[in-house]
């Protein structure tokens, strides 16, 4: 069960009372939310096939991280990775075209939802294998260190990956070689269709402590806290401080994937959702800061227009040709 009593830093510690920064975070969260709601609809209508894993309810984490990362930084994501891709700067149109399997998708329609990757944005890829992105991100951290890029690597993973041996391998290698890596656990309490409490006994922070890696556990539904904390940790890592672990306690609203009726889950868990959900929470704080409802409504209209346009562009985009199906298995010599 996700807890919202995480050791969050007090609001007083947070910086500005000007709404601009939060407004930008809110807009990014809204874009991810509405994008995934659109994907849910497209899946129900049969326009998006396969497995679609939505991060609805968890957008604050991708958004908070995305706000403090630079282009040169790298991330590796999970099967629940739409938010990470968009927040790291993957362009919305080519994202939609990828998920809808079009030639013009960011991966030419060959990857799909679980394999969105964009080197130009430092997005090393979503990954269909639980935990498999971790050592890849850690490897990019090694590349940052060796090539002195000043970049930082972020490893996104869910609490469902805690029991994977590769987490331990990746934490150990990062600590051993003092790599510039931030491990971000999106702890939504669920490992696919089972509560994580039935799967893993140790708190992540204790695990990190065993490897000598500083760890913090925070409210993963408060985008400001996430951005502040991540900003501080990234800056420590960028200065050569070695790896850090950031556990964000959050809530998965949808099922493991679309089509999962969640019969295993007590509906009461989502009863007070508005008090937990990062979007209403950010909206009410914006209100306190003097942002009008009209401005938020205008933002909504603007975001929906972008998503409508991206959906239409993806529908109109060409399917990949068969020649493309056989390309890029190998890098040709001299390429």
């Amino acid at each position, binding site marked *: 069960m996700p807890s919202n009593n995480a050791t969050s830093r007090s609001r007083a510690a947070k910086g500005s009372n000007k709404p601009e920064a939060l407004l930008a975070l809110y807009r990014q969260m809204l874009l991810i939310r509405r994008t995934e709601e659109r994907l849910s609809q497209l899946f129900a209508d049969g326009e998006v096939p396969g497995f679609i894993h939505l991060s609805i309810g968890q957008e604050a984490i991708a958004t908070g991280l995305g706000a403090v990362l630079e282009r040169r930084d790298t991330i590796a994501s999970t099967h629940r990775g739409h938010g990470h891709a968009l927040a790291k700067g993957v362009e919305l149109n080519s994202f939609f075209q990828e998920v809808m399997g079009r030639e013009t998708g960011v991966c030419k329609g*060959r990857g799909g939802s679980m394999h969105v*990757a964009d080197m130009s944005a430092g997005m090393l890829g979503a990954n269909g294998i639980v935990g498999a992105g971790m050592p890849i991100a850690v490897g990019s951290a090694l590349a940052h260190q060796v*090539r002195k890029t000043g970049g930082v690597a972020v490893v996104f993973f869910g609490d469902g990956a805690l029991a994977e041996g590769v987490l331990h391998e990746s934490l150990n290698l990062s600590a051993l070689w003092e790599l510039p890596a931030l491990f971000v656990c999106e702890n939504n309490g669920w490992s696919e269709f089972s509560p994580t409490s039935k799967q893993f006994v140790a708190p992540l922070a204790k695990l990190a402590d065993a490897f000598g890696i500083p760890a913090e556990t925070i409210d993963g539904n408060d985008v400001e806290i996430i951005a502040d904390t991540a900003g501080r940790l990234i800056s420590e890592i960028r200065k050569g401080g070695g790896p850090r672990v950031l556990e964000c306690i959050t809530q998965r609203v949808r099922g493991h994937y679309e089509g999962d009726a969640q019969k295993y889950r007590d509906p009461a868990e989502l009863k007070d959702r508005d008090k937990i959900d990062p979007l209403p929470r950010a909206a009410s704080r914006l209100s306190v800061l003097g942002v009008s409802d009209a401005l938020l409504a205008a933002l909504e209209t603007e975001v929906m227009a972008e998503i409508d346009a991206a959906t239409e562009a993806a529908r109109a985009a060409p399917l990949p040709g068969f020649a493309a199906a056989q390309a890029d298995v190998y890098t040709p010599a001299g390429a």
Partner: protein
Amino acid sequence: MPIEILMPALSPTMTEGKLANWLKKEGDAVKAGDVLAEIETDKATMEVEAVDEGTLGKILVEAGTEGVAVNTPIAMLLEEGESADDAKAAPAPKPEKQEEPKQEAPKAEAKAPAAPAQPKAAVPATDEDRYFASTKTQTVREALRDAMAEEMRLDKKVFLMGEEVAQYQGAYKVSQGLLDEFGPKRVIDTPITEQGFAGLATGAAFKKLRPVVEFMTFNFAMQAIDQIINSAAKTLYMSGGQMGCPIVFRGPNGAASRVAAQHSQCYASWYAHCPGLKVVSPWSAADAKGLLKSAIRDDNPVIFLENELLYGQSFEVPESEEFTVPIGKAKVVRAGADVTIVAFSIMVGRALQAAEALAEQGIDAEVIDLRTIRPLDTATIIESVKKTNRLVTCEEGWPFAGIGSELAALMMEECFDYLDAPVKRVAGIDVPLPYAANLEKMALPQSDHIVEAAKAVCYR
């Protein structure tokens, strides 16, 4: 013909030892599994067991002799009907370069192969030939090390990582001297964490470094096979061509000696099955060097399958650092007209032995060393079979869905009208490799099996 018993090696790096004691004397009957002798190094003592039945005909190295080189004949074993005079008459042969097994394994013996004679027809000329004007004699182990060192000097992005590769200089001593020359940032000892370092190296390759990952043996790469296939091999494709993965995964593959089922299997067909991977498995030291250099320069993930028993074997290797062997080119190592024998890695030596035995029976075999498994050099195989009209395939791995099966399919598709006999596959028997010396030998394909298969396709 009497069977030669060779001085075995206690470890892959042992070069000589003391023959401490004989437990059998000349004239004693011997059956498989009997302890014949004890040998010692400064580290350990071990027993030499008989693999074959017979009579101990002649002891060639007396008890107490120090500094006996690995693979020196230490005794002759007589088979039924042979006399001690046969043994005495048999010359103590000087090991030939391409003879195998050159490096004998603990508690095992082998028949001394007849030295391959020069084939009647010449092998076709290649672009590689000019480099062989000036050569040095090197072991496969040294050739692999030199390939890495030369490429690391040329390109600062190339680095070696793996378990025990730096301080210990490799479990099989392939990375000898590299830490001294390149330092700990480019020759990196990893923990025992195969998925971790295989994935890490893959991520580093996505970001334009060029890792060479040593698996202590490919058996342990099973812990990392998700990263090798799902990440390294597939990402270029899944990302629409954005992220190539210039990486080499290398290490010993296949059976070693008496290390039992979990440490003895051939992964050639496992990896060759997967698009996005290139798979290389050389036999000679020259090919090991030339192909490893090409693999390190390649922008794709390359699975580089070595063989523990070949590490200590010596071959002529070109002096020139310009020498490379292209990935995807097989080599005709013996020209012949009657039957094509295709092999790779350690089976090439056995195929050459078989060809010599066949020559004595009037069958002129052509032997092709695949060198690369994927991409497969189909042209060289097809051209040969169009000439010989017969194919025998050889591999240590299991027969089901093996490389031989792929070659049989190739024959159906490309050589159907040229075949005068069904393809014969020589492979390991379809069981996890057993431990007992005699069982292990029975389970692995030997040159005799190749001879039988070649005779069968020649209807002899």
